[in-house]
């Protein structure tokens, strides 16, 4: 099942501890930023918003 759908690259998914969200890397805004979305792909939100490149998110496991 596809969770993202846009003309740019989305990559490096990482789950939140409760499985409810997925952080990922995307360049949909022009450069690589960290986003988080619900696990069904809804409500993608930019968590970093600068001119630099961010990638490889990993969510603490909550165990």
């Amino acid at each position: 099942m596809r969770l993202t759908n846009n003309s740019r690259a989305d990559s490096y998914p990482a789950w939140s501890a409760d499985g409810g969200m997925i952080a990922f890397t995307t360049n949909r805004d022009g450069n690589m930023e960290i986003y988080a979305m619900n696990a069904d792909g809804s409500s993608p939100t930019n968590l970093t918003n600068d001119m630099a490149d961010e990638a490889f998110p990993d969510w603490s496991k909550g165990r």
Partner: protein
Amino acid sequence: MKKHCTIFGQFLACAPVGIALVLAACSATTSPNATPGPLLPPAILAPTVAIAPIHLAEDPGKIVFESDRDGNMEIYAMNPDGSTPTRLTTNEADDSDPTWSPDWQRIAFVSDRDGNPEIYVMNADGSSQTRLTNNPAGDSSPAWSADGHKIAFVSDRDGNQEIYVMTPWGSDGSAQTRLTNNPASDNAPDWSADGSKIAFVSDRDGNQELYVMNADGTAQTRLTNNPAADSFPAWSPDGSAAGQLAFVSDRDGNEEIYVMTPGGAAAALQCA
């Protein structure tokens, strides 16, 4: 979207009876709901650790990531809403690809500060940065097992990219064991939540596909099969080897994030 049922319950509801029975057998041996014991052995909780112990109920839910916002690639951590980004590494080399230990007190990452990519570990506040691998090859893509006892990683020390596993606090290379062995590139390992399986990427069949294997490297099985490149599997935190895999694929023309349930292929593997 928060899950309101267990993965075992999900399989009872949607999976063929045969798979459900296999998973029931697996869950009986891996006890995903058992009360967790100590996540890390005493060796990594040595008195030299600089940070104060963190109670297990106080997981800050931080996201670690790499950024070149300060001129070169460094490791940062932030709250899940993006607030309070904090730099954890500071040096002229590239520090990248961070991954949390399961008790969120340590972060494994890749750095070329000593001349080539090696795997390092540090405390969650960036202190006590320590090299875990040391060889002329490139070591990368660390992934911590759920019990904290092992780190899977990628190395080309034997000529091409293969997946290895090590004990994070091993004193020498003897604790680093190769799990894959073929002329193709095997990379991007990620552990299942119960620690019994490792998902990874291999182009052994002609292009990048997702595979899964037992944690000891046996029963390597292809999960995807299409002309596109499938990569970067990430196993959901469900307490079972049959959790969902998020991954990246360009099957629709560019890289997008997908999710799949390994289901039959993972269930067919023997319980570790």
